[in-house]
């Protein structure tokens, strides 16, 4: 027996045990360190998601990491069955605890009044497990693991040595976890003892109270426990795990487990089965239990819960040991040398011994800190050099001396970093993707590397755009550089599959990411746990935008639209407090949107892998982990604009027979830049936002270089540091360029002395200090780190003065570096973005219909589709309605330049229905369509409502109205319902029994039999029944015979407004007319200024504007205020509005809650020094008041325009939003509003950057209102006199 040893926890769940643990690995490691523990295990449930972070946290805390996993036993195996059979009594602790009592007194008893669940083993807690066992199919698969027995597996440390393979323990752990996920259903990982046996090398099995052995012990079946234990010992290294949470029955069970271990001669260790950091976190764990099990908090589901499963210190664990061992006689367990013979000593000593055996070394056991690249045959560097030489020739650079020099330089850095095979691998991947015809473009700093250009990874010549390599890869930088590839979003998975196919799953998988609790999800889970009704949960959760959970209560106080929402009531405070405590906890694993990991063939020995929903191999590590573990992570990002452009190019080819090579177009097309400079950039990549449209009109780009500047400038930093105005003044020659020193003319020349790019920061540092670009890049990175900045300053000052720059110059340059160093943008990145930006604009300018078809099909941008169609309409493109005989699934060009709405836009239509419609056409009539297209009734009705069948009746003579067609659908579908109802006598419809016969009349038969979705038991149509068809055709019914039942024109046609309302509801797009056209009369009466005329107004003029809200944004702005930017579309163009904090109190709720708005405000022109000619249309409105246009229209219709003006003046027009509706009753809101200090001030908790840039905590959080992409269901408020339904008859 060894002397006293500090305790080490061997069974610890972190927050990476999803919806189970509450503490992050770093917190746990730090606490273990504080308690003086030598090591700490991380044994998360179901995976190794936190393993790399745990290893890093332990390194930080200077303790040894131990890694393991807690896995469920597959139900149905002998092992798990042992547990399940025990279930009948396992939560009746009181009864089983004291056999004497049971024997003498029986187990029955009245329901307990105490808090102890099942005290005395009484009825209610008893029944549930039994019911489950009787009906196992009733348990949803995800919950199957909730009742399963669980075991913990630990990896033994070996110090495997610096080889390619990690230690067997860690490799076995990875492979076992992968195998657990591979077997059975996705998302329900489970093991069997045999599966463990397959991967037993270097693993230790810990059998605790949750294991089959532990459950048998608790069920008082020592025979079964011994059998189960023997089963494990035959298969793997086995240890008994003693846990005593001091809950009902715990101590006795733990004592019996220990007795079993001693009898059989199996070592026993003590753990605390930790799942939270401290006792105060227990309620969070309880809420997670409820959320995981989909039940409200209640005693039955949280049997015997107490607050003991925290990271206890050595002292506390010694007390637990004493309690279990029934000793407690030795007063100083930790200081006693162990000669007192107390059995607790043995337990603690064995625990410490196992902890030592399982302690892992970062590098040797886990392989962290080394690179594991895919193998390349032969000399990688020679191959790379050869391919670069070939690239020089292919790109026409073979006689360019600058290029040759640059290439040599770059290859030198690559060779010294040992990264040649990395570049070959990425080039191979890029070629693989392009080879499949998938558009692929580089993104990010990799565009600055000539090698990337030469070997086909990048299409950007870094020499042409003066890009430097060091920003991407510099001398002495550790780790792998990032190369990001943008591919067509619609074919992203295809690209992944190609990569995985090429490299194999033993080398390649997708990177995962953790979705964590944010405000909405936290409120949902916490509220469900507290038992709130679902509809209330929904309403509360939706009131919050995309903010962090920890900021819920602060947001309630800070945001005007929430202040007005009636949520700040005491009854909900506790809910919010609990929800806040879920902040940031992982909820579930998801596929990272772009990460692919590549490694040598040992991937599965170092990374556990599960399956994504798409069936792709998904690593349990995230981006950072993968990098730390030394593997290539390649960002292959799906970009919708690439899909949109690919689609547009296909449409051009389809309609014109020409294939445009968009990658080879001239890069200085004048018409394209004229279009960009006029701000007509909706739909274009990167430059379509309201702010960007304003910026491009001021910047008036004339070449790719200008676009690079534009993209770099449109960032919070530059915008708010007001770098834009000085730059534009110089660019437009209103001011001479100005350089801090003449030596800086070269690095800053391209922007007239203004620092915009990271590359310029590098060159400035290099010029002033002569340190070289690699060192300059290292220093630049330090600039964004506040603690390191002072060091950089000292170094820079010294080095620059040593080269003869005087004090004043150094100070001035430093000022510039400090201010803009952190805000600058990587020029290579901007250049990589500028190419697709230009390409999309070029397509819009030269092939507008194809461009819009691509954009509408793949929806790449920020605007709702109806804004894109509105823009198309302004560009002279005709919009053609959905047509079952003409529409494809997606948007199509109809020559010369019209756009046909795609079938997929119809709400609720399935892909199968789209396919059947297209295969079955042409259709001659509604009946024909109904019979052959196999489209459900609601979708058919929607198609009729948006006019998709109008063309079937386009012939001469009267045509049925859409209401007629709807009624005919009713006829077509009606009898089918009767037929379906026939088997159930109680549902027999009276119509059938007319005449006392179940025979159907001829009409019913003929109509009913066409129903597409009938079952096989339908009688076939007789010839006489068909006679009602074509032969009976009357005028205007296209031969479907239905005119006899619903005559042409029997029902009135939809009004123009009803058509648009139907279009908006069904397609989300006003196809036939712009919505705002219905309000023209009122807009005229109110004197509303239209978007096309707004630029004529002087700055400062008070105006009324109106339109459809098309976007709201709350970007970061300089003052730290939360400014809401909104755009309105009034059919003549888009208008930009700004709502400052001073007006949000009265406007925010209505702004977020309404779709159609009238806004009063003052005209503002940015860039005050600009001449109007250059100013272009850059104009916006600072809003002061807003109203709901639809509500005002109602007032006008009922009471006239005067009443509207009066209502607007009174300012008491309620909005349409829920929030505003509750305004009158919102007591807490009024209370809050009584704090004037809160109003018009910056929101509390503003983030202040060292440069003085202040950020509202609510920047970029979006609106709490409904999704901007969908118009509301009801556009026009129902008012007396308007037609209520579609069919008035």
């Amino acid at each position, binding site marked *: 027996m060894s002397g006293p040893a500090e305790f080490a926890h061997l069974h610890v769940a972190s927050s990476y045990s999803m919806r189970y643990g509450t503490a992050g690995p770093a917190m746990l490691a730090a606490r273990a360190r504080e308690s003086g523990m030598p090591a700490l295990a991380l044994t998360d449930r179901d995976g190794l998601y936190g393993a790399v972070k745990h290893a890093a946290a332990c390194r930080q805390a200077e303790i040894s990491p131990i890694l393991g996993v807690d896995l469920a036993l597959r139900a149905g195996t002998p092992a798990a069955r042992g547990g399940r059979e025990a279930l009948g009594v396992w939560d009746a602790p009181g009864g089983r605890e004291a056999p004497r009592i049971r024997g003498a007194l029986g187990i*029955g008893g009245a329901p307990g009044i105490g808090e102890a669940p099942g005290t005395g083993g009484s009825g209610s807690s008893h029944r549930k497990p039994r019911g489950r066992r009787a009906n196992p199919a009733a348990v949803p698969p995800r919950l199957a693991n909730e009742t399963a027995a669980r075991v913990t597996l630990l990896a033994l440390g070996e110090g495997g040595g610096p080889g390619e393979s990690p230690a067997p323990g860690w490799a076995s752990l990875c492979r076992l976890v992968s195998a657990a996920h591979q077997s059975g259903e996705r998302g329900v990982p489970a093991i069997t003892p045999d599966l463990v046996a397959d991967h037993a090398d270097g693993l230790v099995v810990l059998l605790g109270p949750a294991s089959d052995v532990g459950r048998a012990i608790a069920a008082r079946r020592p025979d079964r426990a011994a059998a189960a234990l023997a089963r494990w010992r035959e298969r793997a290294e086995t240890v008994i795990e003693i846990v005593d949470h*001091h809950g009902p029955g715990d101590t006795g069970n733990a004592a019996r487990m220990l007795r079993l271990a001693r009898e059989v001669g199996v070592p026993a260790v003590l753990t605390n089965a930790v799942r939270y950091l401290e006792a105060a976190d227990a309620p969070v764990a309880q809420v997670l239990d409820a959320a995981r099990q989909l039940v409200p908090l209640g005693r039955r589901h949280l049997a015997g819960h107490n607050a003991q499963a925290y990271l206890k210190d050595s002292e506390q664990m010694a007390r637990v040991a004493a309690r279990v061992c029934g000793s407690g006689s030795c007063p100083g367990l930790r200081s006693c040398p162990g000669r007192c013979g107390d059995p607790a000593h043995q337990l603690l000593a064995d625990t410490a011994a196992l902890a030592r055996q399982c302690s892992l070394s970062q590098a040797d056991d886990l392989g962290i800190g080394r690179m594991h690249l895919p193998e390349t045959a032969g000399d990688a560097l020679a191959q790379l050099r050869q391919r670069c030489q070939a690239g020089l020739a292919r790109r026409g650079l073979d006689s360019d001396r600058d290029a040759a020099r640059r290439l040599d330089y770059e290859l030198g850095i690559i060779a010294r970093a040992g990264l040649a095979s990395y570049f070959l691998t990425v080039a191979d991947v890029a070629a693989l993707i392009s080879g499949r015809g998938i558009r692929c473009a580089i993104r990010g700093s990799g565009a600055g590397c000539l090698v990337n250009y030469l070997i086909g990874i990048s299409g950007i010549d870094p020499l042409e755009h003066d890009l430097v390599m060091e920003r991407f890869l510099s001398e002495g930088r550790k780790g792998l550089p990032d190369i990001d590839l943008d591919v067509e979003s619609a074919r992203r998975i295809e690209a992944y599959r190609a990569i995985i196919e090429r490299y194999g799953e033993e080398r390649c998988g997708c990177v995962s990411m953790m979705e964590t609790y944010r405000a909405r999800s936290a409120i949902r889970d916490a509220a469900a746990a507290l038992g709130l009704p679902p509809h209330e949960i929904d309403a509360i959760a939706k009131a919050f935008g995309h903010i962090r959970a920890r900021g819920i209560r602060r947001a309630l106080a800070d945001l005007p639209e929430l202040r007005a929402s009636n949520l700040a009531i005491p009854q909900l405070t506790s809910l919010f407090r609990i929800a806040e405590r879920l902040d940031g906890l992982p909820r579930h694993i998801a596929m990272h949107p772009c990460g692919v990991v590549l490694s040598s063939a040992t991937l599965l020995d170092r990374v556990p892998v599960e399956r994504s929903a798409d069936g792709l191999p998904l690593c349990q590590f995230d981006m950072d982990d993968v990098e730390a573990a030394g593997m290539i992570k390649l960002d292959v990002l799906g970009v919708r604009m690439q899909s949109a452009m690919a689609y547009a190019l296909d449409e051009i080819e389809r309609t014109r027979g020409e294939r445009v090579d968009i990658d080879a177009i001239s890069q200085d097309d004048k018409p394209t830049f004229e279009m960009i400079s006029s701000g007509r950039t909706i739909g274009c990549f990167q430059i379509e936002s309201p702010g960007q449209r304003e910026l491009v009109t001021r910047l008036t780009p004339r070449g790719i270089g200008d676009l690079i500047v534009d993209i770099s400038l449109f960032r919070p930093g530059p915008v708010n540091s007001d770098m834009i105005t000085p730059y534009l003044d110089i660019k437009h020659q209103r001011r001479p360029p100005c350089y801090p020193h003449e030596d800086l003319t070269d690095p800053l020349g391209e922007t007239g002395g203004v620092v915009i790019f990271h590359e310029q920061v590098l060159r400035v540092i290099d010029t002033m200090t002569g340190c070289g670009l690699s060192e300059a890049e290292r220093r630049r990175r330090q600039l964004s780190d506040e603690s390191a900045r002072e060091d950089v300053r000292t170094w820079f000052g010294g080095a620059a003065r040593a080269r003869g720059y005087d004090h004043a110059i150094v100070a001035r340059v430093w000022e510039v570096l400090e201010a803009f160093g952190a805000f600058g943008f990587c020029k290579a990145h901007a250049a990589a973005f500028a190419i697709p930006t230009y390409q999309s604009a070029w397509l819009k300018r030269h092939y507008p219909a194809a461009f819009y078809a691509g954009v509408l099909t793949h929806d790449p941008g920020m605007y709702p589709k109806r804004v894109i169609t509105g823009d198309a309409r302004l560009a002279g493109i005709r919009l053609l309605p959905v047509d079952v005989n003409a529409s494809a699934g997606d948007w199509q060009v109809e020559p010369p330049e019209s756009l046909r709405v795609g079938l997929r836009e119809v709400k609720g239509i399935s892909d199968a229905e789209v396919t059947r419609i297209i295969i079955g056409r042409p259709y001659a009539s509604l009946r024909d369509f109904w019979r052959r297209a196999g489209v459900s009734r609601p979708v058919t009705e929607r198609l009729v409502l948006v006019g998709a069948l109008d063309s079937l009746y386009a012939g001469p003579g009267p045509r049925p109205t859409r209401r007629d067609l709807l009624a005919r659908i009713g006829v077509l579908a009606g009898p089918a319902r009767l037929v379906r109802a026939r088997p159930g006598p109680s549902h027999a419809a009276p119509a059938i029994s007319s005449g006392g016969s179940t025979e159907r009349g001829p009409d019913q038969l003929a109509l009913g039999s066409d129903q597409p979705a009938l079952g096989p038991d339908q009688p076939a149509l007789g010839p006489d029944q068909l006679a009602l068809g074509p032969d009976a055709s009357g005028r205007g019914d296209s031969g479907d015979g239905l005119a006899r039942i619903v005559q042409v024109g029997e029902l009135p046609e939809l009004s123009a407004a009803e058509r648009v309302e139907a279009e908006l509801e069904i397609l989300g797009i006003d196809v036939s007319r712009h919505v705002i056209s219905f309000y023209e009369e009122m807009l005229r009466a109110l004197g509303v200024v239209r978007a096309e005329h707004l630029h004529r107004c002087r700055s400062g003029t008070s105006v009324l504007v109106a339109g459809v809200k098309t976007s709201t944004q709350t970007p970061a702005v300089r003052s730290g205020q939360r400014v809401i930017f909104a755009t309105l579309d009034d059919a003549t163009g888009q208008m930009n509005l700004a709502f400052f904090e001073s007006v949000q109190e009265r406007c925010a709720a209505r702004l977020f809650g309404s779709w159609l708005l009238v806004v009063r405000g003052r005209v503002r022109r940015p860039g005050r020094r600009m001449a109007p000619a250059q100013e272009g249309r850059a104009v916006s409105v600072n809003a002061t008041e807003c109203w709901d246009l639809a509500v005002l229209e109602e007032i006008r219709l009922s009471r006239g325009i005067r009443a509207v003006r009066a209502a607007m003046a009174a300012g008491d027009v309620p909005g349409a939003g829920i929030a505003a509706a509750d305004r009158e009753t919102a007591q807490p809101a009024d209370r809050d509003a009584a704090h004037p200090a809160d109003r018009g001030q910056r929101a509390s908790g503003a983030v202040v950057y060292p440069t003085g840039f202040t950020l509202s905590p609510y920047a970029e959080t979006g609106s709490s209102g409904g999704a901007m992409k969908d118009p509301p269901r009801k556009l026009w408020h129902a008012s007396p006199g308007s037609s209520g339904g579609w069919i008035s008859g």
Partner: protein
Amino acid sequence: MSRVYGERVEITARDNRPLRFVWRGRLYGVLAVLEHWVVSSQWWQRNNPDTGVPPEREFWRVEASPGGNIPPAVYELRRDAGTGDWLLVRVWD
């Protein structure tokens, strides 16, 4: 048979371990502790639950006898850590 009471009792304890208790005016001596466990209160049922450490309830199942010739029975005692109050929860006799 067990009976449920839920009545206040006076306890004499050492290191929080019950030694004797007075129930309905009668003094019972604790002969043996059969079981001892801790359960958190149902914090979510309160109007304004405090989300810190939930108050715990400590249960003691003991063998006790009022002395004389009366054979010992099993008594379950509960201590509310928040208030320090003791309750006799149930009795098996």
